[in-house]
């Protein structure tokens, strides 16, 4: 895919980000507003300690990576849902989530945005098969192709502790041969793309923005540490919506004055 001449209006950094996103299907970049990331991490430490009985001497530094010593898979989903509920109800959380990716979202999506109403949380314990996401593209189940996902890890993620994504060039082949390659069960689809997928390697302090129209998912975490990551969808406010509607799934976050005027404009009465 090529960038057209209009990109001369963009900064060099934005052009570079756009190219990488189109070619790879994602970008991983350092978080510029690091104090916002620290705020989010501190909120999580507070919520985890509130929802689990953890000895005071357990170090905050290892709290997330080693949480599997404090919780088992059967308790995990209720714990996760409690954290999701509380983090989304905390004033300033969604604002800071936006802030950690703001400059990249402006480069890739725009500056007049809709944001998913609730940020999601994934916690993947080592060797736990209960919280897997089979290969899917969000667009296959009702997301608009105009959306991107901001994926924010609270720990370093690598190999099976991370997620995978099918690169854009490989996805063309899948789209052409979807019926044969998807097969009759979720494992069949994974097997048919396994050799082409890209495992994401991302550290705490970095953020990923990826194209959710590309197939992605996770496998059993075979590393010795637990994965903690959040995900949230963003899109241009006035771009097409699919099954995830404005109001029930998305909320406007940066309406610009010209749009405020335009939406309420009326011609003079004759």
């Amino acid at each position: 895919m090529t960038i057209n001449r209009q990109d001369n209006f963009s900064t060099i950094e934005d052009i570079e980000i756009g190219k990488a996103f189109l070619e790879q299907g994602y970008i991983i970049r350092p978080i510029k507003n690091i104090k916002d990331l620290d705020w989010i991490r501190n909120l999580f430490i507070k919520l985890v300690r509130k929802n689990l009985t953890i000895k005071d001497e357990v170090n905050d530094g290892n709290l997330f990576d080693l949480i599997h010593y404090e919780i088992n898979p059967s308790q995990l989903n209720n714990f996760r849902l409690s954290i999701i509920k509380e983090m989304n109800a905390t004033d300033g959380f969604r604002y800071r989530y936006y802030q950690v990716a703001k400059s990249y979202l402006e480069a890739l999506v725009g500056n007049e945005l809709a944001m998913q109403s609730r940020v999601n949380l994934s916690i993947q314990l080592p060797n736990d098969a209960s919280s897997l996401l089979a290969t899917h593209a969000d667009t296959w189940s009702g997301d608009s192709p105009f959306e991107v996902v901001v994926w924010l890890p609270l720990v370093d993620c690598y190999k099976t502790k991370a997620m995978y994504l099918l690169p854009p060039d490989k996805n063309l082949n899948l789209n052409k041969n979807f019926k044969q390659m998807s097969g009759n069960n979720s494992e069949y689809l994974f097997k048919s793309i396994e050799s082409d997928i890209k495992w994401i390697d991302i550290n705490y302090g970095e953020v990923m923005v990826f194209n959710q129209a590309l197939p992605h998912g996770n496998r059993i975490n075979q590393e010795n540490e637990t994965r903690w990551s959040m995900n949230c969808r963003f899109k241009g406010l006035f771009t097409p919506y699919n099954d995830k509607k404005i109001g029930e799934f998305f909320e406007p976050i940066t309406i610009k004055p010209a749009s405020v005027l335009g939406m309420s404009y009326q011609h003079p009465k004759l």
Partner: protein
Amino acid sequence: MKKLRGYIFSRYFLGERIPQYVQNLVLRDYCDKKKHEYLLSATEYTMGNSFLALQQTLNDMKNIDGIVAYSLFQMPELQIDRIKVYTKILKSNKELHFAVEGLKISEKSDIDRIENIWLIKQTLPKCYQYSE
């Protein structure tokens, strides 16, 4: 406690659209009331007439007791395709629940009841309509 995999739609079915989170709420509530364990839903693909997610769920039932769909009207519109779904469920000794209608298929005799409702639903648009 039976483990039931949720099944929801991301597109219209018989002219109706229900937000996905509402479908999930109904499934969770149904499972709570019936004392079943609700497992994260499979979402049917948005592409028209696709039942790929349903097929995949039917083929991934090894460690579960069945499927709970939001509505029975999320089954394929062709009767022959619906019967294939019911047959697969019963042959595997599983159950197929429909949360909104509060119905289920766990034995062969349940199929007639479900199919009668389906056929009536498909016939009604062809019947006399009146407006007040």
